[in-house]
């Protein structure tokens, strides 16, 4: 597994260095910045800096700018990670290298881990740039618990990785990237508390947020960054995040294997 992991990491790194479409990179940063900018302008000029009294109760903070900057940043990170991992096999299929890959006795775990971790290099840069710009717009980092934030972010990234396995198998099965990923991203942005707390949504939509790792990761991350809370304060969210990650991992690992077999039959003949 580790040999597949390191060689896939290196292969993707070489590909990125040689032929990475930088418009993707700028696009992801811009979409994060637009989210922040939109929320900032709405907050300042539409709501005149006044939030609904329920907001603090729902979100646990009265700092909407920090709330929305972190929402936009982690959402952008989720989108990038999901895209990098979930599109890997379908990209192999489209570029004609899937057969050669499936012929080898390589570990699929190593393959996805290598893809995910290499993608994290780029995503990390995007994340830092958006945080920096968010800070200029008023993101408050004074109380931040660095260790707790790091642990929460790491767990959240792991959960995105497992969710990407499920999304990847859906993409591979339907041989579609655009509709599958964009449907998920729109639903995710709506029900995961990216720009406003989930509680504002009608009750029948809440269950959808329960299956989104972004929802739990974001709440815990905000708590440790804005309020400076430790890991214990976010234990429920972290537990949900871990359980959800395990569920997605099991489903994803099974689905990828099953879909590979179906795709080989569907496509190669």
């Amino acid at each position: 597994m580790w040999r597949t992991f390191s060689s896939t990491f290196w292969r993707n790194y070489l590909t990125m260095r040689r032929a990475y479409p930088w418009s993707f990179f700028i696009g992801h940063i811009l979409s994060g910045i637009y989210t922040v900018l939109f929320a900032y302008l709405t907050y300042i000029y539409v709501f005149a800096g006044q939030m609904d009294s329920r907001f603090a109760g729902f979100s646990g903070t009265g700092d909407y700018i920090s709330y929305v900057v972190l929402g936009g940043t982690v959402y952008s990170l989720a989108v990038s990670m999901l895209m990098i991992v979930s599109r890997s096999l379908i990209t192999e299929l489209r570029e004609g290298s899937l057969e050669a890959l499936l012929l080898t006795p390589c570990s699929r775990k190593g393959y996805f881990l290598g893809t995910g971790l290499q993608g994290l290099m780029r995503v990390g840069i995007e994340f830092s740039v958006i945080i920096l710009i968010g800070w200029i717009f008023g993101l408050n980092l004074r109380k931040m618990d660095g260790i707790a934030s790091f642990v929460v972010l790491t767990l959240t990234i792991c959960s995105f990785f497992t969710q990407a396995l499920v999304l990847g198998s859906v993409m591979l099965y339907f041989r579609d990237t655009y509709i599958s990923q964009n449907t998920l991203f729109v639903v995710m942005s709506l029900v995961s508390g990216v720009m406003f707390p989930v509680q504002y949504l009608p009750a029948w939509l809440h269950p959808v947020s329960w299956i989104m790792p972004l929802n739990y990761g974001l709440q815990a991350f905000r708590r440790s960054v804005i309020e400076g809370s430790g890991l214990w304060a976010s234990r429920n969210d972290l537990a949900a995040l871990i359980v959800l990650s395990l569920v997605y991992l099991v489903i994803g690992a099974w689905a990828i294997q099953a879909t590979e077999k179906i795709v080989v039959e569907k496509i190669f003949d």
Partner: protein
Amino acid sequence: MLSAVNLRKVYITKEKQGIFRTWKKEVIAVESLDLEIKPGEIVGLLGINGAGKTTTIKMLSTLLLPTAGSIVIDGIDALKEPMKVKKMVNMIAGGERMLYWRLTARENLSYFGSLYGLNGKALTDRIAFLLKEVELEEAADIPVERYSKGMKQRLQIARGLINDPCYLFLDEPTLGLDAPIAKHLREYIRHLAVQEGKGILLTSHYLSEVEALCNRVYIIDRGALVLHDTPENIIRDVSAGAILSVWVSELQNTMLESLTKVLLPFEASLTVIKQSDGVELRVQSKQDVTALVLQHLFEHGVTLQRLEVEKPKLEDAILTLAGRAVAARETA
């Protein structure tokens, strides 16, 4: 030895009827196919119509699971232990797929080699050896997207050999290649079997290639085995035989009648074609009647202008078999 017994593959396809209605349809790609490849031999797999060659190769290379049957490679069950078998086999397909175009040849081989568990000096040495074998040493550090079709195909061969497979499956390996490159590749395929003892399964639309390279040939029609033998035996048994063409200045009717009688026991067909400068006698027979015809002509004082013998090819045999298959289906 690679041994496939009673191999069967059925695809379930969905047929659309209107906008919303679909129904499932079974398509038999391979039916009860028995196949053997011994180390050091090149075996051809030829198809007549919708033959299932690629499906067979994909089952043998563990890409596809057969619906029924067994595949055993050097004592290992490919269906139970596919990961072990993957290390022993490889596949090379025609065209420009199965490579990473943004990587160089060296990087491609390094990646695939590591997926097969190679590393360190063993991997570096193997890459250097293969790059030399396929004559890509000078282009080793250029991204594949800048390669010509022939270079990509040569790199594919190196990729297919990176794990030093015991059995190699070649699916149209010379497709679209220039004649000199295709010739070089054929020589290399022979070298792999004869010198390195690899068992090779070859499918190709270029029947002369199969005839020149293969020790044995399996011919399948709609997934089922039609014939299995050496190319020589297939040609002898299936085709109508060699064509002897003799050009003479003139021919008496009596001589023609006597020649017909002489040829009668050999089930030879005799055709007389009048040319502007004489007559062409065309005799087709499964047995060699050249000496007999010439002796008869000399005895009758006929002067020969020219003589040609056209030996039947595997292509003729396949065409005959295709004709028979179509006729059988029409009758059915």
